[in-house]
């Protein structure tokens, strides 16, 4: 550049073109659409020629673009070719080395004429691995490979073998994270499907416990298991569950919570209609009552359906504590739930509309402490409530030790500072604190969210119309809840009487020797779970 251009470039910023990349529409360039496999004329079949198989497999798996896929070519005895294909990191290489490749290399050579005698039995006779199946269906083998198995193709055989040798890194079985109790077993589900169903099976050691396999998701083909006890569960319930699960049509299913949202009847209802749990003992108890359970690979939670509104508030410890303590704990929990929904609304309604209910001296304290506060009551409440929710939300994102401390410290300091700065009155802090604590006492996580939503609605109604508004809110909410059904069972199933011989009382816990009948709304095949006299030592 000459001197003029240099001078110019010193003062004028040189033009740098912006990055010109934009996404170009790319539809209909799918090479092989798994979702449409059924529309093809014939499913792909294993061919006898190993070259065809190899070419097809390489094309399907985009080998060698796909770095994970490993294709190992072998020559068995007398030079017969074979190849293995697996995905590195998902397959158990020790098993591959020790059992599969070893046994493949030991297969005796058959003359070309004789080889076809053993076509069907190659998997049964020669492969030394516990889960092996021979099939002609290429799709099945590819699916197995995708899920961590290993495919074996031998030259000259019409069938390929798929071996289930998955072993990938996964979490160990540990304590349940959210549903902790003092008594009772302390195991919680982890992500491996087989481990989870094993945890359930080892509690209910009956062969009538059926785990039906399901696959959800057209591409992800996530495997799940529908469990029920065939001697107890109602057939129409199981059929309905199966029908619903099989008619989910989506591409990828990542976690069981998505399945929960697909299965529930009203997505925008305030409360969930399906119970989800992390504990195998809760699942076992539900199965014994006659319910149906869904487990999914890759999710540490199980879905239990059907459920009713009251059962969502029960905790596992009710069955492990002694009956008087369990009843007391239920009462405290109910009070906590009641407080967490209604306390702010009632407080606002009382102080704004119905001051005559408050005892006189308390009214003077409230009035005096509000004298210095610049905001109206409802703005105070919303401010404090929002801050509390933000603290709680922030506490979830922090790593564990810091998270809970942050919550407590933040709450205390915020509240204290707000009171000293005369932005809020101390009574409001107490109300919000009790509400927050009440909502922590809720057992089901999604239920605590639903209570938070309801609390806002009741605050709005209470501040607009006092007790009348709250009465209307309760009325409308109960009627809307009364309409809901959870897998055909009405959601607000009425409470059985306190001393009836039911397994799960809605409100109070029965003594354990009185829990004889299964819930009647499940229409189980077998009504009785215990005999009338369960403690035979008392009679003698």
């Amino acid at each position, binding site marked *: 550049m000459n001197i003029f251009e240099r001078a110019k470039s010193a003062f004028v910023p040189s033009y740098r073109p912006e990055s010109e990349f934009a996404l170009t529409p790319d539809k209909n360039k799918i090479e092989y659409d798994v979702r449409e496999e059924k529309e093809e004329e014939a499913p792909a079949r294993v061919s006898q020629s190993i070259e065809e198989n190899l070419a097809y497999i390489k094309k399907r798996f985009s080998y060698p673009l796909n770095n994970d896929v490993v294709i190992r070519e072998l020559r068995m005895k007398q030079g017969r070719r074979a190849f293995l294909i697996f995905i590195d990191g998902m397959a158990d290489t020790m098993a591959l080395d020790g059992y599969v490749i070893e046994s493949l290399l030991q297969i005796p050579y058959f003359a070309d004429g004789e080889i076809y005698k053993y076509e069907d039995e190659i998997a049964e006779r020669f492969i030394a691995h516990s889960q092996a199946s021979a099939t002609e269906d290429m799709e099945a083998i590819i699916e197995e490979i995708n899920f961590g198995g290993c495919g074996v193709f031998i030259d000259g055989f019409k069938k390929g073998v798929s071996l289930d040798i998955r072993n990938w890194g996964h979490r160990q079985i540990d304590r349940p994270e959210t549903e902790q109790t003092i008594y009772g077993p302390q195991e919680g589900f982890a992500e491996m499907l087989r481990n989870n169903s094993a945890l359930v099976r080892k509690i209910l050691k009956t062969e009538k416990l059926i785990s039906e396999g399901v696959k959800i998701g057209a591409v992800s083909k996530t495997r799940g298991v529908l469990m029920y006890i065939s001697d107890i569960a109602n057939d129409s319930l199981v059929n309905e569950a199966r029908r619903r699960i099989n008619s989910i049509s989506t591409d990828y299913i990542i976690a069981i919570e998505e399945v929960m949202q697909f299965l529930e009847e009203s997505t925008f209802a305030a409360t969930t209609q399906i119970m989800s749990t992390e504990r195998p003992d809760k699942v076992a108890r539900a199965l014994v009552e006659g319910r149906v359970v869904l487990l999914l690979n890759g999710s540490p939670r199980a879905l239990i359906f059907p459920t009713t509104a009251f059962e969502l508030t029960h905790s596992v410890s009710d069955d492990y504590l002694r009956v008087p303590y369990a009843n007391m704990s239920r009462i405290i929990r109910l009070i906590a739930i009641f407080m967490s929904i209604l306390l702010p609304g009632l407080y606002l309604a009382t102080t704004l*509309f*119905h001051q*005559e*209910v408050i*005892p*006189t001296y308390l009214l003077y304290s409230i009035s005096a402490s509000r004298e210095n506060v610049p905001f109206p009551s409802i703005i105070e409440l919303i401010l404090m409530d929002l801050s509390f929710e933000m603290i709680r939300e922030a506490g979830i994102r922090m790593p564990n030790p810091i998270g809970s401390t942050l919550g407590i410290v933040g709450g205390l300091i915020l509240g204290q500072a707000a009171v000293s700065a005369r932005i809020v009155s101390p009574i409001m802090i107490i109300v919000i604190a009790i509400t927050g604590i009440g909502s922590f006492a809720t057992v089901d996580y999604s239920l605590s969210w639903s209570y938070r939503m309801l609390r806002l609605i009741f605050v709005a109604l209470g501040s607009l*119309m*006092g*007790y*009348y*508004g*709250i*009465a*209307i809110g*309760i*009325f*409308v909410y*109960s*009627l*809307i809840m*009364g*309409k809901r059904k959870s897998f055909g069972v*009405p959601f*607000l199933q*009425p*409470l059985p009487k306190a001393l009836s011989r039911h397994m799960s009382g809605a409100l109070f816990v029965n003594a354990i020797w009185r829990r004889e009948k299964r819930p009647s709304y499940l229409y189980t095949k077998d009504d009785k779970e215990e005999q009338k006299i369960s403690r035979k030592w008392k009679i003698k």
Partner: protein
Amino acid sequence: MLRKKELTSIIINAIHTKMLLTYPRSVILNSGNAAWIQLLYNFAVALVIFFVTITAYRGKRGLIELADILGGKALRIVTGVLIAVILTLNFVSIIRIFPETVKIVLLQDARLELITAIFVIAIIIGAYAGIESIARVHYLFLPIAGVMLFVFLIMLLPYYDMDNIMPIFGNGAKSIFLSGFNSISLFSDMLLLYVLVPYAQNLDEVKQSGTKGILIGGGVSVIIILAYCLTHPYPVSGEFMVPVYQMARMIHLSSFFSRFEPFFQFVWTILILLYSSLYVYVISCVWQTTFRLKYEKPLIIPIALICCEIAMLPESVINGIEIQHKISISAYPLSFAVPLVYALLSGRRN
């Protein structure tokens, strides 16, 4: 499908709801503080009529279907319209008085139109939920209301005074038994039971639930009015507009438990809302069955709005109470006679 217990709770609520408004006052004006004797007498007569009707009833059809079988289309339309008109009149008098009650007790500064508007919206939403949901919520809520009532009556113990119901026959036997027959209009809501027969499992359940419902509902009404007579002496007891609220005001255990009436009114508001939703739904069902329409839910909004309009016609509370009294006197004979006649005739055709 309504179960027996849910049907029972519906009947209990329907009968004793009127006691929570201005109904006891009209009974007391008639017969003095012997109003409880009058109500007991009405209770016995209503029970007898109910037994006669339900024992003679055959088949599992509701009243309107029965009319159709007995007399064809014309009779069906006449019966249906008659029942709808009776139920509407019954309902309209409640809609007029209840928002006034709320305004007196709970929300003194609010406008009446606002209270009524929210009331109507709430019962429309409630009626849309359907009869099963309404019945289920009835069944869940009535025990709570029962416990509240029990607590309420216990808290009034220091104020009961036997001298208040002396002289024992009040205004005289003639006014209790002769002109006192009119207050049987409290039980005229039994008409609902006959309209709801198709929703029950079988006639036996209807009979049992109706009996239990009348017994408990009537018993509760008698107890309420007895408590009112025990706590207030005669000429004064006829002056207060909402007797149950007056009793709630009296409760004064210590300075802490001294003004609890908003809590009780809160429970009673929910009871009356349940009653109103049920009524709106049943009226639209009646119109649907009469004219063989396909759906009943679209009728809910117009019926609720029309009832609200009619209810707002009286200009003041004074007119409202008069008109309510007149309506209840004129409508109750039909509400007993129609089911009785049809029940007796149903035995013929079977």
